[in-house]
């Protein structure tokens, strides 16, 4: 068996094991609350404003774009990725089980990759579902006929697909960042809040600084640009050809960093 086949197999075993653990952990409840809250919010809105009179107004598309950016992207996906990815290593140190991974015939880089894959599998599935459900609930509030018409058109399918792609890209970027944060920091919430603060104030930043973020690239994939507000410094959105490889590179760099740190990590439970 070649090294690559062996590593892939080991990474998949680690990922499967981690997915089970994440779904059975206490963090899973917080994850479900985070992922479910926007769906409930949109469900309530759907119940209150449902009208079967169509056609779909442009304002609804903008309203969803605002909801997506301010709730789904900034809160749900951001904190969801934090909840899933930061305990991947830190949680094992805290419950004193990291040594079992270290005592297996597994390269630490493969361990990092397996854990990252597990986090991605969970977040892509959960937040992908949240994205599609919220979009459906908001769009369907103008009637089933209108929804069917929109879904049947190529542009209609493209819109939820673009939001889904943005969500997945955000999971990839934040996932990598939070995996690395979870290895370096004993209290990951502090740097996480720092990152959130930076990304929240990004609208005030010049174009060059906007590029040092995940959200700048993710938002460039949105099919409808949400309004930036009067104080914002407007910057040209990144092209998808830059945004997607850019975030992939950020995630790869973070994963590489995490793998290197993990190689140097020692089992010192007494001092953690």
């Amino acid at each position, binding site marked *: *068996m070649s090294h690559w086949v*062996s590593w892939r*197999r*080991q990474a998949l*075993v*680690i990922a499967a*094991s981690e997915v*089970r*653990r994440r779904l*059975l*952990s206490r963090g899973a409840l917080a994850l479900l609350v985070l992922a479910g809250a926007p769906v409930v919010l949109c469900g309530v809105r759907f119940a209150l404003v449902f009208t079967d009179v169509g056609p779909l107004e442009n304002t609804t598309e903008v309203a969803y774009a605002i909801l997506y950016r301010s709730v789904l992207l900034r809160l749900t996906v951001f904190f969801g990725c934090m909840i899933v990815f930061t305990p991947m290593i830190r949680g*094992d140190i805290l*419950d*004193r*089980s990291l*040594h*079992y991974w*270290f*005592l*297996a*015939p*597994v*390269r*630490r880089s493969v361990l990092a990759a397996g854990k990252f894959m597990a986090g991605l599998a969970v977040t892509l599935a959960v937040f992908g579902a949240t994205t599609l459900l919220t979009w459906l609930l908001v769009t369907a509030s103008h009637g089933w006929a209108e929804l069917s018409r929109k879904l049947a058109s190529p542009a209609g399918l493209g819109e939820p697909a673009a939001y889904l792609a943005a969500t997945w890209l955000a999971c990839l970027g934040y996932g990598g960042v939070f995996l690395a944060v979870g290895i370096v920091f004993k209290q990951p919430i502090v740097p996480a809040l720092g990152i959130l603060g930076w990304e929240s104030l990004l609208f005030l930043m010049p174009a060059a600084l906007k590029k040092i973020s995940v959200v700048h690239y993710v938002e460039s994939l949105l099919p409808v640009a949400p309004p930036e507000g009067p104080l914002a410094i407007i910057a040209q959105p990144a092209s998808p050809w830059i945004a997607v490889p850019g975030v992939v590179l950020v995630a790869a760099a973070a994963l590489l960093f995490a793998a290197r740190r993990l*190689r*140097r990590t*020692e*089992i*010192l*439970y007494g*001092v953690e």
Partner: protein
Amino acid sequence: MSGSGRIVFENVSKFYGEVLGVNRVTISIGPGITGLVGPNGSGKTTLMNLMTGLLRPSKGRVEVLGVGTDDPETLFRMVGYCTQYDSFPPGVTGLGFIASTLRLHGLSRSEAHERAWRAIESAGLGDAAGRKVAAYSKGMRQRIRLAQALAHDPRVLVLDEPLNGLDPLARAEAIALFKQLAGEGRFVVLSSHILHEVDLLSDQVILIHHGHVVAEGAIRGVREEVTEQPLQVSVRCDRPSLVASRIFEVDSAVEARLHDDGKGLLVRTRDADRFYLLLNRLVVEHGLVLEEVAPADDDVHAVYRYLIEGDGGTS
């Protein structure tokens, strides 16, 4: 580094910040059972963690059968480590715990489950295989850790206090198993604070104190090197007073003490061989009837007392 067929520490030091873990350790461990002996905090677990790559040496180099400890992919195909950490991944069952490790060794799901079953049954936990490890008793948790360390059939077994929490029957079974593995030419490195168990088990010992290796080797050899402490020989015979009266003809004799029952004596001598010659002479010339002649302090306990506790008294 020489000794690719051994476990080798070459001038290894480990510091936890400014706190000494082990200092300038140079040892070479061969097949068979090697006991690590030392008081709490002496560095036994640090040595084991260095041996398995859970810790990185601050200085020096560690190799296990020619493999560096920074190569887990190769190392843990031949090493099993039963740690002292009494913790497990949350929510895991006994069977799942072992099977998931075996899958990382490249076994298919069915092979891993089959082998995990065998390991669990040999650990006497067949009935509890499907139960969560968190609900196991301390002894069961110790057994499942042992089973996991052994499940992939390693050549090198590192066991940190492996008999802790085991009931007498399980202890006896574990001891028999370790001896069997050593008999097969495997490397069994274990630590225990129960000295008579180390004595019973070990082919050689490594005595550690304050992070330094104080002595290493076969226990009798180690004892003989402690020259500042006279050897103690217990003699059971029909006329102990005769032996006592002649003992100081041998200038290396230090002390003779009659047993309370009058049927033997304890002799302290710096040259056991000359004392044995004297005994032979007494048998031949005076018809002394010897019942038993046995060294009284060439066990781990005595060596521990002399080298670590600094006890110079007689037993």
